[in-house]
């Protein structure tokens, strides 16, 4: 276990970083470390955590904004929003299903990893709703970008640059999010028995309908069997969600059902819908052997089935499709050969991958995200140097040697 520092305010975080910068000493940056198994392992003698920067600093429901310090557990933010009938738009997942139970994930960790749930396909990613951010750069300086208003194009958008940067460009200390009213009712159309291409075609029709479908997934039979509500189908299921006021949900599910003209189509009620989509976002359908590696692949939705079939044939991968087919969750043996198959399939499909979980040795040995073409890689190194000139923040997390 490395030496853990967990200061209680931003100034103390800045002091730690400034001192480390002076000594060119690498730091492992984390919140509660619930997603430490993602990407490449970081080699650092000391860890710097934001877990003691807690508390909601602003909540204005009528202005659709909430601010909280980075170490605030996400669940606390969600609970405060729920009291006023609001929610986090991108419905970030709880990945304790694949990383194991333990501490609660923090708001800062969710922003730093830019993880989004099923609603992403219709309402944007976590990063789309980051209105403001405070962070300590590798210079040991606290900066802010954005603010607490819904529209803001003043200056370069460091909110987006820092979101999903996995702690390599700055230590996020506080975040302001746009939030929305939570839907009154949730309904889901379930179409059992379609193979992946037919299922994704149905999802494409649903997402291309005027009925504001807010999530669309396809599960093969073995994945559906892991969700109690769906297990009864005993076969694959394509699912399309509609969320709104109750009369709208009733009307639109009925219209969509008519438009899809499918032989068999069932409507899941509010409670069933909520549990199904929570499970899909949290990777419940993927639960794999603890030793298996897990990849998150993003491609254009229509080629998701090809990627899944290819990897299933090549390395016996299991998986399922979210985001209308474009998000391919894959579990396969944690081997270099399986990783090479993923890289080949995704490259052929024109998409992106992220190694979510694997043995440390595999995560150290392979490209955990796609390498960039040389001219872009040069810009990446210069932007990294612009924010972290001594290379002390989570070195190696995204790319070996950076």
């Amino acid at each position: 276990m490395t030496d853990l520092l967990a200061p209680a305010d931003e100034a103390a975080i800045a002091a730690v970083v400034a001192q480390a910068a002076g000594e060119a000493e690498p730091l492992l940056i984390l919140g509660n470390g619930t997603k430490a198994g993602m990407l490449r392992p970081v080699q650092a003698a000391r860890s710097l955590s934001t877990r003691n920067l807690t508390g909601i600093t602003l909540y204005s429901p009528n202005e659709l904004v909430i601010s909280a310090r980075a170490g605030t557990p996400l669940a606390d933010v969600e609970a405060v929003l729920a009291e006023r009938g609001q929610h986090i738009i991108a419905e970030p997942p709880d990945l304790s299903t694949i990383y194991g139970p333990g501490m609660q994930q923090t708001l800062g960790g969710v922003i730093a990893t830019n993880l989004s749930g099923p609603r992403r396909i219709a309402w944007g990613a976590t990063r789309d709703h980051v209105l403001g951010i405070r962070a300590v750069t590798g210079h040991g300086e606290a900066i802010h970008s954005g603010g607490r208003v819904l529209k803001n194009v003043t200056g370069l958008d460091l909110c987006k640059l820092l979101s999903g940067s996995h702690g390599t460009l700055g230590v996020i200390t506080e975040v302001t999010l746009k939030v929305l009213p939570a839907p009154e009712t949730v309904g889901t159309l379930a179409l059992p028995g379609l193979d992946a291409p037919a299922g994704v075609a149905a999802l494409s029709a649903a997402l291309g309908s005027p009925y504001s479908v807010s999530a669309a997934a396809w599960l093969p039979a073995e994945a559906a069997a892991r969700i109690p509500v769906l297990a009864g189908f005993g076969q694959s299921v394509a699912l399309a969600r509609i969320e709104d006021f109750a009369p709208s949900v009733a009307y639109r599910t009925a219209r969509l059902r008519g438009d899809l003209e499918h032989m068999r189509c069932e409507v899941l009620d509010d409670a069933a819908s909520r549990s199904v989509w929570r499970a899909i976002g949290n990777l419940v359908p993927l639960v794999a052997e603890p030793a298996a590696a897990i990849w998150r692949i993003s491609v254009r939705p229509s080629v998701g089935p090809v990627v899944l079939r290819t990897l299933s044939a090549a390395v016996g991968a299991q998986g399922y499709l979210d985001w209308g087919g474009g998000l391919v969750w894959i579990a396969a043996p944690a081997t270099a050969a399986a990783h090479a198959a993923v890289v080949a399939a995704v490259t052929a499909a024109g998409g992106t991958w992220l190694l979510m979980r694997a043995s440390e040795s595999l995560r150290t040995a392979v490209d955990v995200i796609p390498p960039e073409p040389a001219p872009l890689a040069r810009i990446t190194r210069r932007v990294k140097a612009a924010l972290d000139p001594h290379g002390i923040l989570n070195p190696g997390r995204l790319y070996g040697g950076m």
Partner: protein
Amino acid sequence: MIRQPEPKQEVLARRDAIVAGLRALLPAEAVIAEPLRLKPYETDGLSAYRQPPLVVVLPETTEQVAGVMRFCHAEGVRVVPRGAGTSLSGGALPMADAVVMGLMRMNRILDIDYADRCATVEAGVTNIGITDAVQGRGFFYAPDPSSQLACMIGGNVNMNSGGAHCLKYGVTANNLLGLKIVTVDGEILSIGGRHLDAAGYDWLGLLTGSEGQLAVVTEVTVRILRSPEGARAMLAAFRSNEIAGTCVDAIISSGIIPVALEFMDRPAIHACEEFAHAGYPLDAEALLIIEVEGSAAEQDDLLARLRAICERHDPISLRVSQSAEESLAIWKGRKGAFGAIGRISPDYLCMDGVIPTSRLPEVLRRIGEMSDAYGLKVANIFHAGDGNLHPLIMFDANDPASFHKAEQFGADILTLCVEMDGCLTGEHGVGVEKRDLMPVQFNARELDQQRRIKEAFDPGWLLNANKVFPLSEAAMR
């Protein structure tokens, strides 16, 4: 007047050679060097500022853009990228020693993919051109800036443009999947693609709204959405800005997010009504236009809920549209607002601050006081759902003192917006107009950090160098 950097004399001295070099790279008609033909490029939507460029190039392909960038990089010549030139912040204002890179000839729609709900177009396709191309299949491109008939998607990306409907659909950044860009040294790069959430740093997000500081955008892949079944508007008139503001709060807290929620103050109501005869009540202090979407029954349901909320706020009048035609009439005044102000005053500055919506009454009161103090009329149009305030300051361009006062008034309003926890610009960009106000919103460390990121892309400050960042040693190089 906002100061412009000194042109590099050694570049001006090499003008003939630079023009010849560009002519060697591009078709003859793609290089404009005759002074008379440079006139149309000397300004943009911020027409008080004018500066003929060194030369204008109008490339037709990404490869030509790359050739020009390689040449300019090698020669140390600045480049100002330009779309339709509709920027209200001077984002495309030329520099005397810079090549204006006009992308309007790159106007092809390259691919429409309905199955994956995206379209790939060149940077010079107009905003409305994307919707025009897909509406036959019932789709649309969501961000809808007021200039959408003219403005181009490349400019929209660089300014992260919004519009009246972004409360529901988001701004440009929320509707992009991929870009093709040319770096300052002429490398062609693909960013993102047709998939969501590329791994690695969020270049798509950083480039969006970067105002031509980081790279030249030549192709854009946007998300296209299926149009709703229908939309209908209602009009609600109130006795005071405070009451209208409270009503906006009540609407949002009811859980309804209208697709548009527009606010006009008394001067704006009068100007628009005289111009458009939309039937706006002239005895109102504040007017809300509220639009909802869905089937006829869904519209009825939402409008009934909204009507009930408005009725609790002592409205002077409420008018719920019964048809698409009536909705159009309700919107007619608002959409004609700029023309309407233009009839009262030939010259006006359209400001673009953002405030927390709860501060609206206070901000409008302060703007009214400033208006009296400066002796300049102002009308306020406000995207009430998202806090984006557009004060239209009327002045007389023939009177330099009047223009100076208008600029000062505008700066005071934007400073007030920042004091109120808002920001300098919600959708028009910093450009030249708000460049020197940046220290109001950012401290020196923060500006330095942004400059370092600019330099990671453009070490020699060749791209749009007179914009966004307060003039400094670095920017004046």
